[in-house]
């Protein structure tokens, strides 16, 4: 009997050890999945799994940039564009007129012609769509007559004219990044969506098997399991070498990678980066992006009701000085995080070197708190909506440093959805927030008195408005740099947001299976940019 039990125990132990050991590496001889000529991508379950993800909110997933195109194709930095659906563009000297000429003979994946009418339809629909990135609304509402159309008092947009394959935009004020925004904006098929309710466009049944205009088209959608992309025979550009993409809805990207069923993945989660880095098949490429991690103070609501705990700017300054951001960055985000003192990264040419570096100084922090008459008997409510372990560790560290200067901290994760908790419920003093920005306009746009969310915690302060407007309108690099420098000074003066870190994103590519040309430069994976996917191939 004892012998049998011993055998059973050994068997159990062996299986447990096998589970804990390093996973098998993909077969270097090219067996099994090595020769499986399907490019594997994942969407994590928890998101909607019964439709292709709508593109006016998140745009940059690899299966999105390869199926839907915009008028222009931006570079990795998102600053320059080259023609895509458009063949050329021209901006008037005053920046108020933009003429875009479309390529001839463009087609949708169902063979229908893709024309300037689709562009007009997409922009008009976007103005009334509920789920859309703010960068589009900010740019398109500057088209003459767009606001009236959006509000329903006009049937058309006077500043949006279509003449053959030419689209002319007349703007009420120059928009510095108008062309770059058009480089992000996915064009939708009018013939398929013209009867859809713009408010619920993101949920339209069109997305179950969308008609596309990129190098691939969706050929099969199996709800909850996967969808398949295959070559779009109506695509006029260079035919991609990879003929099939399978996008799987899965719960665990690491398991997919370990099973050799993941060819491309991007993340800024240190847990995932650590696990994927252990797999020799994957090549990691860190990418500098405008991804901010910062604390927002709940200062005052739109009616002017003030939260006395954080209203004094000295308290806010004390908080940022009390946190050893460098130590946190080095321990939690090794080679992934950079310190952030304002909306402009430290290594950017527009960074204002005269602003404060907020060096870790607990003595000064304590002095500032005392000077501001901070009530140390009061508990500071620190909240977060992130549930990943690194974020929890991050906030634990922040709470620890605040404790070191005598602040009692109540740290918790929000129970409800982030937007409601941050801007409507507002039961916190400071909350952790992230922002993946397309440009500096978004970071500074949060300070605008008109920002529908931030006005609920910043009281609709107008101090930034003029500079933000100038930034939005500016097209000249030197002028933009000057405005940005002024904005950095102002934001440090008011400290309405406490910048902590800027995080890189890491792109992982299955190097055993996929060959990516060395000329490919990756940018912000949440935005459309040229990754030359047509040149990618299987090894």
């Amino acid at each position, binding site marked *: 009997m004892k012998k049998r039990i011993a055998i059973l125990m050994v068997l159990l132990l062996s299986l447990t050890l096998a589970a804990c050991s390093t996973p098998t590496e993909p077969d270097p001889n090219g067996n099994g999945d090595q020769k499986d000529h399907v490019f594997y991508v994942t969407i994590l379950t928890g998101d909607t799994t*019964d439709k292709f993800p709508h593109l006016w909110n998140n745009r940059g997933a690899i299966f999105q940039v390869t199926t839907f195109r915009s008028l222009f194709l931006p570079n990795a930095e998102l600053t320059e564009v080259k023609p895509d659906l458009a063949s050329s563009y021209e901006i008037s000297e005053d920046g108020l007129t933009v003429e875009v000429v479309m390529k001839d003979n463009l087609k949708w994946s169902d063979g229908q012609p893709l024309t300037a009418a689709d562009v007009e339809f997409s922009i008009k629909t976007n103005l009334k769509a509920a789920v859309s990135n703010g960068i589009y609304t900010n740019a398109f509402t500057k088209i003459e007559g767009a606001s009236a159309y959006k509000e329903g008092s006009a049937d058309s947009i006077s500043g949006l004219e279509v003449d053959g394959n030419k689209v002319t935009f007349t703007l009420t004020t120059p928009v510095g990044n108008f062309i770059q925004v058009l480089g992000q904006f996915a064009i939708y098929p009018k013939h398929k969506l013209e009867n859809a309710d713009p408010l619920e466009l993101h*949920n339209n049944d069109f997305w179950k098997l969308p008609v596309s205009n990129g190098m691939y088209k969706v050929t099969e959608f199996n709800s909850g399991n996967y969808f398949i992309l295959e070559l779009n025979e109506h695509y006029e550009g260079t035919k991609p070498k990879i003929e099939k993409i399978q996008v799987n809805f899965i719960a665990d990207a690491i398991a997919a990678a370990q099973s050799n069923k993941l060819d491309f993945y991007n993340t800024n989660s240190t847990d995932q980066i650590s696990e994927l880095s252990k797999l020799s098949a994957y090549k990691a490429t860190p990418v500098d992006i405008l991804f901010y991690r910062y604390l927002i103070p709940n200062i005052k609501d739109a009616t002017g009701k003030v939260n006395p705990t954080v209203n004094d700017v000295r308290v806010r300054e004390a908080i940022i000085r009390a946190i050893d951001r460098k130590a946190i960055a080095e321990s939690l985000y090794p080679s992934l995080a950079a310190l952030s003192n304002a909306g402009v990264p430290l290594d950017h040419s527009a960074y204002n070197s005269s602003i404060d570096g907020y060096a870790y100084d607990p003595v000064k922090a304590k002095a500032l708190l005392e000077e501001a008459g901070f009530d140390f008997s009061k508990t500071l409510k620190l909240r977060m909506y992130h549930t990943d372990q690194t974020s929890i560790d991050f906030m634990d560290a922040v709470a620890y440093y605040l404790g070191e200067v005598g602040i009692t901290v109540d740290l918790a994760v929000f129970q409800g959805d982030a937007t409601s908790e941050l801007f409507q419920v507002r039961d916190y003093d400071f909350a952790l927030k992230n922002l993946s920005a397309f440009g500096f306009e978004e970071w500074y746009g949060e300070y605008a008195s008109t920002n529908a969310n931030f006005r609920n915690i910043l009281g609709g302060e107008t101090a930034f408005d003029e500079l933000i407007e100038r930034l939005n309108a500016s097209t000249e690099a030197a002028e933009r740099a000057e405005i940005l420098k002024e904005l950095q000074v102002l934001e440090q003066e008011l400290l309405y947001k406490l910048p902590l870190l800027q995080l890189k994103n890491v792109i992982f590519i299955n190097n055993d299976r996929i060959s990516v040309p060395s000329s490919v430069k990756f940018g912000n994976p*949440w935005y459309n940019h040229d990754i030359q996917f047509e040149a990618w191939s299987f090894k």
Partner: protein
Amino acid sequence: MAKFLVKKILAMIPMLLAISAMVFFALELTPTDPINYLISPDMASSAGNIEALRESLGLNDPAIIRYFRWLFNLIRGDFGYSIISGTSIREIIMLRLPATLELALVSLVLSTIIGIGIGLLSAINQNGWIDYVGRVMGVVGISIPQFFFGIVVIQIFAIQFGWLPFGSRMAPGQTAFFDRLHFMVLPAFTMAIAMTAALLRYTRNSMLDVLNKDYIKLARSKGIPEWKVYLKHAFRTALRPVLVILIFRLPILIGGSIVIESVFSWPGIGSVILSSISAGDYPVIMVTTLLVAAAILISSIFVDIATALLDPRVRFE
């Protein structure tokens, strides 16, 4: 019996109404807004039209009006639409319920056969080697959480050996039931382990209890063959508490297992419930929880029926 059934079914109606009201108003207390959930605060958002969407979906109406509107539509057979995905809830159920049913059914059958079988043999061979194995299985199955088992079997059989898929329910070209059976092996096995363990322990203990009764000794003294004593005299009586456990597992067929479906990316009802709760997608939460509640209430009726059938002392009253 017909009267009993009608009475029980009629009693279900106020219970389901009460459950639906409790779930709805409890959701009202949570600070989750499905429309806000649609847009991540990590991205700049276009807030202007969000309010128009909220208005068009009737989300600005008072809770009581929304509840009765939902109830009225439900009575008319209109389950409504998911706020998050826009898909009709009927379609969600039609798509997800088969996945949950097939996984739960296979696990239930597996765990029932193995659990009752080993439990029976353990009791008959008390302190024999099969009893030791059964007891180890019982302790291991009950004490180790399902998600841990799931991760371990994925690591061994999907990642280390590469024999089975690590998740999902099907792959292109493998959508027919028998073609995709291999996708079900790991989740069904994992789900069955904990279910087997509980059943095994109950069956063993119940059998041991019955085997010590006087009427079993009497049966043996009459010279009735041993197998007949076990199966006909002892097992029938021992089955009663086991049956209660078994029947109360039926709601899993409808509600699925959130843990198993999450670990194995199994697209069933459980994962729909989880994601709809995170998003505050109340039309989906209401219908799915009501389905699960109905399944539990029906199971309870089944328990009453089964008890009466197995025990002549119990009457349908």
